[in-house]
């Protein structure tokens, strides 16, 4: 996998071609999206599911963009992939510095934690929306991205500052390495 932690120049070279947009615009756009989903779907569980699905659709496309911009070599394992997402991917797309920790023994489960998150600036969850996973889109993005490189995972939000926790914590669990599928049948 790629090592993004060494040296400022390498990191800057990796970020070439990454355009910047106004952070507030991004935050407000996402907020409007969530609110719109809530007024359309009403049920909080449905909204959580939709956010995950939207994230998935973003993730399967975003991973190509990421690979093109960073020239990352092929990740050899789930552990590699998780680290790359946290240290390079999140940094590149959201400006977030994330850390991977709490690996289980066979390296199929871990936690990703981070403190800042542009998606939730100024957001306060009202009383009746305490079950809303406001940032569920992130889980979908990771799931979609990893599926494109043949890893099926489950991602969930374990700790959420909008619900009182100190920092964000996502759990990532590898379900299986999917075999490469050929589009043509061998007959």
């Amino acid at each position, binding site marked *: 996998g790629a090592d993004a932690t060494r040296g400022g120049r390498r990191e800057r070279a990796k970020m070439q071609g990454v355009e910047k947009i106004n952070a*507030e615009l991004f*935050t*407000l756009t*996402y*907020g*409007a999206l*969530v*609110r719109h989903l809530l007024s359309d779907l009403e049920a909080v569980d449905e909204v959580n599911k939709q956010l995950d699905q939207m994230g998935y659709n973003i993730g399967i496309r975003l991973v190509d963009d990421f690979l093109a911009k960073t020239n990352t070599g092929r990740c050899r394992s789930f552990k590699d992939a998780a680290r790359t997402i946290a240290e390079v991917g999140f940094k590149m797309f959201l400006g977030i510095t994330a850390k991977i920790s709490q690996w289980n023994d066979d390296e199929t489960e871990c936690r990703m934690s981070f403190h800042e998150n542009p998606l939730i*600036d*100024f*957001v*306060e*969850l*009202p*009383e009746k*929306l305490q079950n809303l996973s406001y940032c569920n889109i992130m889980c979908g993005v990771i799931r979609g991205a990893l599926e494109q490189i043949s890893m099926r995972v489950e991602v969930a939000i374990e700790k959420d500052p909008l619900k009182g926790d100190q920092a964000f914590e996502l759990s990532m669990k590898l379900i299986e390495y999917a075999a490469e599928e050929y589009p043509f049948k061998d007959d």
Partner: protein
Amino acid sequence: DGSHAHLRPSHRPCGSGRMPRETSTLTFVIVGDDTPIYECELRAGGKREDTINYLHEFVLHAALDNVEETIWTTPNSYLKAVDRYYDLTVSAYTTSGLVKFLLLHDGKNDEGIRGFFHDLHEYYIKVMLNPFHTPKTKITSKDFDAKVKTLASKYLL
């Protein structure tokens, strides 16, 4: 009477007929469109009343017409004193979105009130940036409540 029904909290007992003789009691209200989205009684010593004084609410509501008129006479956000009731004055401030901050107070404290409104406006903007908040939603954030109290102690009491 119907037009003031929305200003009356349901649990409040009827006010007595006597003019209240309080010093250093202020009532602060934020009005968006036609309904109050935030109300707060402030007392010296940082004590916060849980029920809003009925008379104060009435005076503030009556002052709204004056506020509307004054808005169009000046490009300033701070409208200063727009109405008086015996020894109580209503000072007002308006945002670009025509949301009105009203303060009912005794005495004269122009600079303090200006500073209070100005800083409050910044906190108000932060509340408005919450995607779950609309110009009509009541502000229920405890954070905002605490900030109002802090600003009041700093500028007004």
